[in-house]
């Protein structure tokens, strides 16, 4: 794990918020695009997990945003040459924002968040809510992919279906995903209780927390 991944969760969160503010305050489309480019370069340099999937999503986002803004502005009577920089600026802002928070999400483990929140003296319930929110996202994403693999492994033609059929299958995954999410939340709450978690008691942490947060205990020599 790189040093950037081990940064304190709140430092990452503050950094992502700053990047978002800069991207939205940038004076023109080129500056916004530069911010988006720098964020993507940052994701690549820090070897953020899931970058390829993020880039696919970001491409779709850019296409949708540019298309919808061009349509909207043309309906309002704006020339294409005038509308294009505005659409690009909006898409670049969104890519910079989502990219920055994608980094926070992908590189912050629930344990590291719990440790940072405990060190920041947040109430135990807030600590739990933060770490569960960030911790469940990768689990639900894995679950979504698992259901797709299960559909494939049971004979559902996802890979070679037309886009509208793929979309229908993806939406159909929502129902089992919801069932699993509810079941998962219940199971995690039972697991917390059986581990002696008490929301009224402030927890300790094995991690050393500062600008960086420990990700492992060194082996005794």
């Amino acid at each position, binding site marked *: 794990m790189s040093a950037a991944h081990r940064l304190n969760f709140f430092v990452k969160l503050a950094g992502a918020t700053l990047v978002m503010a800069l991207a939205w305050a940038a004076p023109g489309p080129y500056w916004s695009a530069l911010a988006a480019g720098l964020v993507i370069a940052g994701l690549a340099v820090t070897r953020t997990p899931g970058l390829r999937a993020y880039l696919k999503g970001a491409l779709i986002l850019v296409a949708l945003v540019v298309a919808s803004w061009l349509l909207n502005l043309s309906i309002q009577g704006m020339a294409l040459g005038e509308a294009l920089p505005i659409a690009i600026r909006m898409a670049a802002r969104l890519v910079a924002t989502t990219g920055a928070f994608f980094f926070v999400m992908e590189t912050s483990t629930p*344990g590291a968040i719990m440790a940072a929140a405990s060190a920041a003296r947040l109430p135990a319930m807030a600590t739990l809510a933060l770490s569960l929110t960030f911790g469940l996202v990768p689990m639900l994403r894995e679950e979504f992919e698992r259901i797709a693999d299960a559909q494939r492994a*049971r*004979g559902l033609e996802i890979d070679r279906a037309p886009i509208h059929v793929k979309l229908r299958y993806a939406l159909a995954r929502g129902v089992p995903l919801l*069932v699993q999410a509810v079941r998962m939340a219940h199971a995690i709450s039972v697991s917390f209780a059986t581990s002696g978690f008490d929301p009224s008691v402030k927890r300790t942490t094995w991690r050393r927390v500062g600008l960086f947060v420990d990700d492992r205990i060194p082996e005794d020599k």
Partner: protein
Amino acid sequence: MLVLDSLTVGFGAPEPAVADVSFRLAPGEAAVICGAGGAGKSTLLAAAGGIVPRLVRAQEFSGEIRLGGRLMREWPTPELFSAVGFVFQNLDDQLWNLSVEDMIAFPLENRRTPRDEVRREVSKVIDRFGIRRLAGRQALTLSGGERRMVALAAAFAAEPDLLVLDEPTTGLDPQARGRLASALGEARAARPGCTMLIAEQDAASLAQVTERALFLAGGRLVGQTSISDAARNNEIWRTAGVIAPGEALRRRRPGAVGPTRLAVSGLRSSLVRPGGAPVLQDVSFALSAGEIVGLVGANGAGKTTLFQTLLGLLKAAAGSVALDDADAASWSPAQRARRIGYLPQNMRRVLFNMTVLEEVVFAMATDTRRVADPVIRAEALAALEPYGLADKAEVNPFALSAREQGLLGLACVEAGGCAVAILDEPLIARDRAGRALLGRFLDASEAQGRAVILISHDLELVDDVCARAMVLADGRLAFDGPTGAVWDSGAFEALGWPKPYAQEARAA
């Protein structure tokens, strides 16, 4: 000390899951609960560990449970779960997405243990359980066996007065089971006052660390004896519907009896190991119609990668896969899946329809909308019947027990008429009724000309039902031949596992 007095627990079914159970465990005593799937073992453990009715409500709950002389219901929740360590059978939910260190430290952190002490304890437990190589990894990236060792380490780190383990050897290869038994032994020696209650069908693997065996059938305690006496009393195991340690239920089907259904040649996976070597290398074999072949190998040998590559879920870097003489190279995973039925150890991983009936209809027609077709519907119900699931046709598959989900998987493969079935560690085969249902599935496969690959760490099961066995070691097929010869092969010896029925042979 743990005392159960006339405990009855029910969840709304006509018969309670646990009925009038009483027993007493002294401080430091370890008991194993044996019983067939659905006998009430997990419910009994959940009640003994305080989960039922405190965290999971039961419609019917009577009798008394005392832990350390104090009534269970009088324990404050955090205090109770500081005194009880629990490891569930299904660990996917228990470990969610924490790192190995987080999982082990979690109960200690909840008790406000100072940081340096937590680090010392975590480090000690990591070494005791031999999981140093897993340090720093997230639960989602661990294999099933690795997760189980981590969960056990976490339960022990909390230094509980009562440790409750639900089927702890599930998914562990024989060597890992040995490590588990050693770790339990060491942990008991380090904490002699810790009482242990373990539900386990493979009681023999934990015989060294348990003193008593309790037998459960239909929710009732049908016998209890010392572990040493239990080993000599096959009748008590039969009464509980469990296969006795060393009891052979041999019914090997004939070898190659029909045309080739699956041919794999020079298969190399695109997935690589941390050192850069492919997970699978030069794997070649063929399966004939009606053939039942056992596949054994240590955790991490490449078994999962093998079937994922066969199914097309992972890309092959080289080699070919042919189904019924047709090259499957250009086939999508869905096209392959119509010929290859796959049953994972955890069936939840392949269920996605909203009712049991829809699952079978999907297996038959790959379209759940066909459930409205009366002919398809009748055929699907008929497919559920032999596995005792017809009356659960409208139930959500996630609401079924793990055993019922396993049976649903068999019904789906049979109804789908696949050319090849891959059974990954069928846990239903660990009791007599489940073994009979697996036997029924294998008979049907033989009759329908289906080839079956049985992946299992249960060597007695492989020895009993497979005429041919393969050993996968470090991604290569190290042995492929008659089951009678595999146990004396160099490939099997290299695994360092005991031969099936070895203890009984020594005793004889």
